[in-house]
């Protein structure tokens, strides 16, 4: 199995607080890793370090075996083109239509012609079930639709890996399903993903590995079967049962 992406000994310090403490992970084709943990554990920071939206104080990122030189803007852009990112609060460009949100980077970064870009953008919008919303602006879309456009925007760049930072936590419960369906289809299609999420059904059924983070480190790391087994004495199970208690349902 070839290693798509390696994160090696990443640390981030803010003042004298370690946000991330010596975190490493490897991504292979077909991997779907899920980050779970309390807020402030460093999940977002880790994801944003992977494509260098946050510059780690220490550590290295390797893309397909090649170390990324973080001093080179060209190499950083290359890394980011290959590692798609989905944000919790969508971050669609508010002044552009759904279609143009997707086209912008295709034209500017992938250097496609306007026609080619639009063709690809429409295909991606179709994949997330929004082909009839192409001409609408973000402010005219619901939260779930915005997130689906954001996913289409990331996919259009044809990334090798997708990072998802709690893609459904800003959505109200009725909209979570439509976004999770899209993500599930992607997972089943074999897209390698690292995803911070508390959607336990998804974790149980599709995650290949669960990474439980606390205080900036990964404290437990195994398949969901092991970590979430009935009666397992794991921090992960403990945390997830609390989540479920909050929702008022059985684990």
């Amino acid at each position, binding site marked *: 199995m070839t290693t798509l992406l390696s994160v090696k000994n990443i640390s981030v310090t803010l003042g004298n607080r370690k946000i991330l403490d010596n975190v490493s992970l490897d991504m292979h084709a077909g991997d779907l890793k899920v980050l779970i943990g309390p807020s402030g554990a460093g999940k977002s920071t880790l994801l*944003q370090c992977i*494509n260098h*939206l946050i510059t780690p104080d220490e550590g290295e990122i390797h893309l397909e075996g090649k170390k990324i030189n973080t001093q080179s*803007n060209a190499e950083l*852009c*290359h890394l*980011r*083109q290959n590692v*798609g*990112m989905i*944000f919790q*609060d969508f*971050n*669609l*460009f*508010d*002044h552009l239509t759904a279609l143009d949100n997707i086209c*912008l*980077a295709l034209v*500017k*970064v992938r250097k496609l012609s306007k026609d080619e870009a639009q063709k690809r953008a429409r295909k991606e919008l179709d994949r997330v079930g929004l082909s009839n919303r192409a001409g*609408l*602006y*973000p*402010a*005219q879309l619901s939260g779930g639709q915005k997130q689906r456009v*954001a996913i289409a*925007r*990331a996919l259009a*760049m044809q990334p090798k890996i997708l990072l998802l930072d709690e893609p459904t936590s800003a959505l109200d419960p009725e909209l979570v399903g439509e976004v999770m369906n899209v993500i599930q289809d992607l997972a089943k299609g074999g897209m390698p993903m690292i995803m911070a999420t508390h959607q336990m059904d998804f974790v149980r059924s599709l995650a290949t590995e669960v990474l439980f983070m606390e205080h900036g480190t990964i404290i437990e790391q195994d398949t969901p079967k092991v970590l979430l087994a009935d009666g397992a004495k794991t921090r992960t199970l403990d945390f997830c049962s609390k989540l479920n208690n909050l929702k008022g349902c059985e684990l």
Partner: protein
Amino acid sequence: METLKTIYVNLPYILEGTYVTVLLVVGALALGFCLGVPLAIAQVYGSPIIRRAVGLYVWFFRGVPILLLLFLFYFGLFNVIGLNLDALTASGLVLGLASSAYQSQIFRGSIQSLPLGQFKAGCALGMTDRQIIKNIILPQALRLSIPGWSNEFSILLKDSALCFAVGASEIMARAHFVASRTYEYLPLYITAGFLYFLITLAGIRILRRVERKFAIPGYTLSV
């Protein structure tokens, strides 16, 4: 009756001043815009040294009265460096430089009011800083700047009357000239005031129209 006749006879002369004033204001606003946008970008995204330099520039032009700036440049600096400009061009230049300082702060405010996620999302798609600023940040920031910018327009319009002091023959200069020749001070100053009033109204209407034209659908409730 006499008064009305004086105004009527001298109106074409004063109206010509209206043309001069509009030219002056449009030129200064354009210069201020062309300098103000890069200044704002430099102040937000530049290195500490660049930010400090822009800060000094803004401090200087906002810290000195416009009239003093006009004298300083027209009678002082331009002479020292041997730049021989007519009063109108010199006035436009000075007003434009001063306006760039004020405009830069309007644009900086708009840029900084955008959510950080807009920049991050561009980054995450592999866009360069330059592409992000040009295609994502500025189109949104400039839209947000229009209301503040219409303030700058109306202030600059009235500041342009100061250029009378270095001999630019705009509305104020001409009205004052006719007034002191005919001793009809009050009616002529009222006429001049009325013209400034009309230009302000026209300008604000135009900017309002621009604001509506570029409004992002669904983004703002009013407009």
